[in-house]
């Protein structure tokens, strides 16, 4: 499995991570499935609903509010997501995955990431260290949900 990333969405993800630091950023990846591989044509920034704790609570309450906040959690507003799904379809593209940042953390998925993940999607993580985008990785959940497998990224074009 390979995630083919166009240079433009790659730059978009890195910039979004840096811009929203020290909060976690998130967004959606539009593209196409190409057999076992995926191609990402566009990265669209979405709002981290955790910056609006009241609304976030309606969708998915935090387990330990004292330790969890917009700095180490992200949640996508399902209404924004519905709009994004429609935008993708209108342009003949599919939602192939999502991206988020790990502020001052390595670009490795956490258990929390895994527990909330769906099969098939590519989960791109960018590590942002002191405001600067660093390592960028991609992950796909295994069928039995037990772990994330690392997915190779190839920058195309």
């Amino acid at each position, binding site marked *: 499995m390979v995630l083919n990333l166009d240079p433009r969405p790659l730059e978009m993800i890195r910039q979004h991570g840096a811009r929203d630091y020290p909060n*976690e950023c998130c967004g959606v990846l539009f593209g196409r499935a190409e057999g076992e591989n995926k191609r990402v044509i566009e990265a669209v920034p979405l709002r981290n609903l955790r910056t609006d704790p009241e609304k976030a609570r309606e969708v998915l309450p935090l387990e330990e509010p004292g330790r969890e906040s917009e700095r180490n959690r992200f949640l996508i507003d399902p209404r924004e*997501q519905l709009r994004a799904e429609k935008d993708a379809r209108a342009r003949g593209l599919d939602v192939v995955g999502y991206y988020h940042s790990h502020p001052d953390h390595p670009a490795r998925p956490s258990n929390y990431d895994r527990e909330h993940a769906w099969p098939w999607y590519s989960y791109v993580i960018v590590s942002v260290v002191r405001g600067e985008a660093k390592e960028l990785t991609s992950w796909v959940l295994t069928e039995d949900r037990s772990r994330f497998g690392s997915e190779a990224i190839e920058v195309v074009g």
Partner: protein
Amino acid sequence: MAVKVVIPTPLRQYVGKRDAVEVQATTIGEALAHLTAEYGDLRRHLYTEDGRLRSFVNVYLNDEDIRFLQKEQTPLNANDVITIVPSIAGGCARRCICR
């Protein structure tokens, strides 16, 4: 009556790789029951073991979240579109003590 259920990309592998499925139903709950009866592998992704709709699964009727309508009892009209939207959430280490 016939309604369309739009399937998100991660779940298309369980419905013969289609992006939408038509079902006959009069409520949301019935539509989802028929859908998962026909495509058994979908069931564990949409429902908990005790048969409740998973909290990570958002169901929209046209553009309305069914949680703000009558949930699974929400009645359907012909040509309604049901969209399944998977919740997307994540974050750093569970016990982030770095700041």
